[in-house]
Every structure is written in C-alpha cells, then in structure tokens.
C-alpha cells in the first residue's frame, strides 16, 4: 500500500529524483500506470532513465542504458538538483519529527558515540532543500515518529512555519509523508504534520499509538482508495520482470 500510495502521489510529466528501494519501485509503477511521462533522475547521473525492470542499485547499468543522458555526479547535484529543476524528491527516514525534519545519521544524543550509526546524509539534505516538493516514505512507529529527531540530516519545516524561508531553502519541503498506515501532511498554518488520510482498514487510534507525539488529525480525513486491480497487476509484472532478469 505504501508503494501504491507513493506512486499515486506522482503526476505525469513531473521530474522525479529517485532513490533505490521503495521510491524506485513507486516511480516505476507510476510510469506503468497513470504517469507514463514521469521523468526519472537517479543521483548516479542518469537523466530520464526508463528501466523495464527495477534497478538493483542506484547505479544499475540498466539506468545508463535507457537514460536520455548520463552525466557526472557533480553535474547531477549542481546543474539539475541545486537550481530547483527537480519537481519531486523522495526521502526515507530512520526518524522523522513533528515538523517533518528527517534523521538518517545517528540515533542517540552523542554523535561521536551513537546508539545506532545510520548510513548518513547521501543526497537527502539537498533533495530536501531544493526539490519543488518532497515525499517522505517511512513505516509508522514511535521509534521513527518522534517529537524531535536526534540529528537533523535533512530539514523539513525546522521548528515551524517560516523557518524554511528564514533558512533560504527554496524548495517547498515535505508536503506528503506516506506510511504503512496512512498519509501525514503539514498543516498550512503551523507546518506541523497532521494525519490527512488512512489506508483501508486502518483506524486513527492505531496511527496515534504509533506516533511519538500527540498527533493531530485533519478535519477532512480521507480514506486512501485500495489498490486497483490494474495497479496490483502492474506492480506484480514489474517484480516478475525484475526477478527474471536478475
């Protein structure tokens, strides 16, 4: 359901900065369903990759083979991401807080002696800063959804409304957080994440129980449409083609 919800958040014709794993699956699913004109940019340097299976890594040869252009990694970040040419960026998160700030660096208070050492920033800080908007995909748990992240790897809305502007961040920030339970979005007044949709069969109490702060619920709480047969078929086909070619 997370993958399908993430795919649906992508509009046809958008230019999408894609990381490996769920974002890549979602973006390729979108290309095969409602958004055939979605442009995929991978940080390895492939502009407009059109893989016919899921790439096995962010630098999979199929991305270079099917891309409109293959460019250097500095060019990806300097000519394409930094000036705001990318519409949608995807982020994962080990922790995300009330204002959608994201941590992928360390768990624990002491950076030098962390409880858990995570992979680090990668492309995330500048994706979060410079994409027109950002989608965060993360499983919902009190470990992940915390009042305040232990380390700000990527800025969401800082400590609230106006912080992005004060920091000079030019992209729109995380407008959509997709979890296994539903969707959270920033309140237009405060930029605090509020629950705006629940996936089929999920109750609001479950969301509350798995969020590390007293999460608010939007007045117009929606219910996510269940995956359609064609979405499920496209997803199955994508995975089959991936396994066959591995």
């Amino acid at each position: 359901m997370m993958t399908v919800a993430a795919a649906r958040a992508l509009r046809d014709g958008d230019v999408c900065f894609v990381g490996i794993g769920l974002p890549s699956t979602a973006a390729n699913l979108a290309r095969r369903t409602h958004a055939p004109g979605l442009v995929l940019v991978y940080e390895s340097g492939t502009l407009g990759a059109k893989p016919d299976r899921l790439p096995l890594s962010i630098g999979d040869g199929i991305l270079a083979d099917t891309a409109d252009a293959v460019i250097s990694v500095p060019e990806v970040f300097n000519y394409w991401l930094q000036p705001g040419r990318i519409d949608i960026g995807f982020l994962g998160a080990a922790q995300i807080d009330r204002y959608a700030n994201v941590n992928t660096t360390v768990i624990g208070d002491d950076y030098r002696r962390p409880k858990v050492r995570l992979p680090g920033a990668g492309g995330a800080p500048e994706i979060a800063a410079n994409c027109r908007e950002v989608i965060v995909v993360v499983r919902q748990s009190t470990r992940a959804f915390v009042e305040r992240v232990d380390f700000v790897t990527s800025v969401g809305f800082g400590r609230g409304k106006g912080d992005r502007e004060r920091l000079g961040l030019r992209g729109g920030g995380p407008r959509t957080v997709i979890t296994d339970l539903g969707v959270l979005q920033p309140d237009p007044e405060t930029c605090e994440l509020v629950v705006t949709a629940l996936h089929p069969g999920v109750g609001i109490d479950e969301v509350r129980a798995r969020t590390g702060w007293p999460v608010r619920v939007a007045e117009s709480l929606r219910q996510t449409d269940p995956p359609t047969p064609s979405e499920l078929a496209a997803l199955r086909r994508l995975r089959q083609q991936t396994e066959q070619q591995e």
Partner: protein
Amino acid sequence: MARIASLAQAVSEVVHDGDTVAFEGFTHLIPFAAGHEVIRQRRRGLTLVRMTPDLIYDQLIGAGCATRLVFSWGGNPGVGSLHRFRDAVSNDWPVHLELEEHSHAGMANRYVAGASGLPFAVMRGYVGTDLPGQTSNIAPITCPFTGEVLTAVPALKLDAAVIHAQRADRQGNVQLWGITGVQKEAVLCASRSLVTVEEIVDELDPRPGAIVLPTWAVDYVAVAPGGAHPSYAQGYSVRDNDYYRAWDEIGRDREEFNRWLDNHIFNPAPGEVRA
C-alpha cells in the same frame, strides 16, 4: 605519461601508510581488486575518502587499514548496514575510526574544487542541518555581488586516487563509460593515481557516453580483469548481487570477517586473486 605496471607494484607505488586516499566509483566500476591489494600490503593509518563507502571500505576498515573516513553515505546498497564500519565507529574495533561527514552534494563539490585547483567550492546546502556542527569543513560564505549567504566546503586534497575503468590503450590513456560518477574528479584531485582496467587495447575507439583520462593525467595503469567485482563494469560484467547479500552475514561477525580475510585476501584460492 602513465606507467603500466602489475597491480601489486602499482598499489605499492601509489598508496602509502598514512595517505589520504579515495577509491571512487558510484555503484559502478568500484575498484575492489585494488582495495584488496591494499589490505594485502597491510597499509595502515589511511584516511579513506569516498561518497558512498560500501563493501570495499567495510573490508578496508575491518582489516585495520583506516583511521579516518570522509564520506556522505555508508551502507550496503539495497541490503543494509556496513557492520565493520559500525563496529569501528561504535567499538573502536579493530581501531578507532574518526568520521568526517558530508552530503553527496558537498562531497561532489569538494572533488570539483580539488580538480579545479581551488581551495574551496560554493554551494547551496547543509543549511539548517546538524552536519555543520560536527566538522569545521562546512562554512558560510557571502556572495560579493548579492550579499546572499551560501555554503563553502574545502577542496579534497588526496595523496592518492584509485579507480577502475573498462580499458586503457598502450600509452596509458584510460576510457570509461556508463555511470562515471566522480572518478575523473577524484583522479584530478590526487597527487598520485592508479587506474585498474579490464583490459589494455591497441586503440580506444570512441564510445557513446565514454570519458577519457589522458595518459599524462594518470600515474599508473594496472590490468585487473574483473577488478570491480562484486560491482560491475558495464560491457564486461554484471553486478554480483549475491555477494552483496552474503556480505551482510560475513561482515556482521568479527570471526567470520577474519576468516574471510584469511581465506580470500591473504591466502586466496589459486586463481582468485586477479592480475
């Protein structure tokens, strides 16, 4: 002019104890064979530089070659964590590993500045994150024309850069294609460079998407067929995903890891060490 030498000789000329070294390759063309040779030569006190430290750095760190890591994303792509890296950071095993941490954009710009002979690069980045609090190598800089405040990062200065490429010619001109990452910049940042190649050919016929490093910008070329394994060399090999998955088990345990070192690096089966 690049010298064409054996892998063992080239590594011993290019990588010395205490050096700052980058082994680059963005998922593609990762110079594993050269990294294994560095372990075999028991280099110590290296500062390892790399945007995406993955298995080869887990192996170098676990083998005790490194005391410092400058990086932007350290993981086993698509699989999980680097356990030797974590063990060094959290438990100083086998030695303490100091970290300097950046974003991809920051590292890429540090390579560009180094390749350009500049002391620093300017970018939009890091603002509002906790990264600048952990290193003095991220600083604000003001545009002299607009007054806007941006971010500066210092150039990478490398003693040595090691990359893997598809081919070289007999003069030592190097050609690589597919995803080429920051390899050109890494070589141009370094005082000494080594390129391992799949093969040496008489002539480098032009290829779509290929870049060429001229021989006068490279110090050593060594033939190492399959030298990017378990990563891949486009047109020569495919990624060995099983190896990446299997590494999770090996890297997780110190004993397992030491056995792997003994069996695959120090006393490899005949034919396992390439070139």
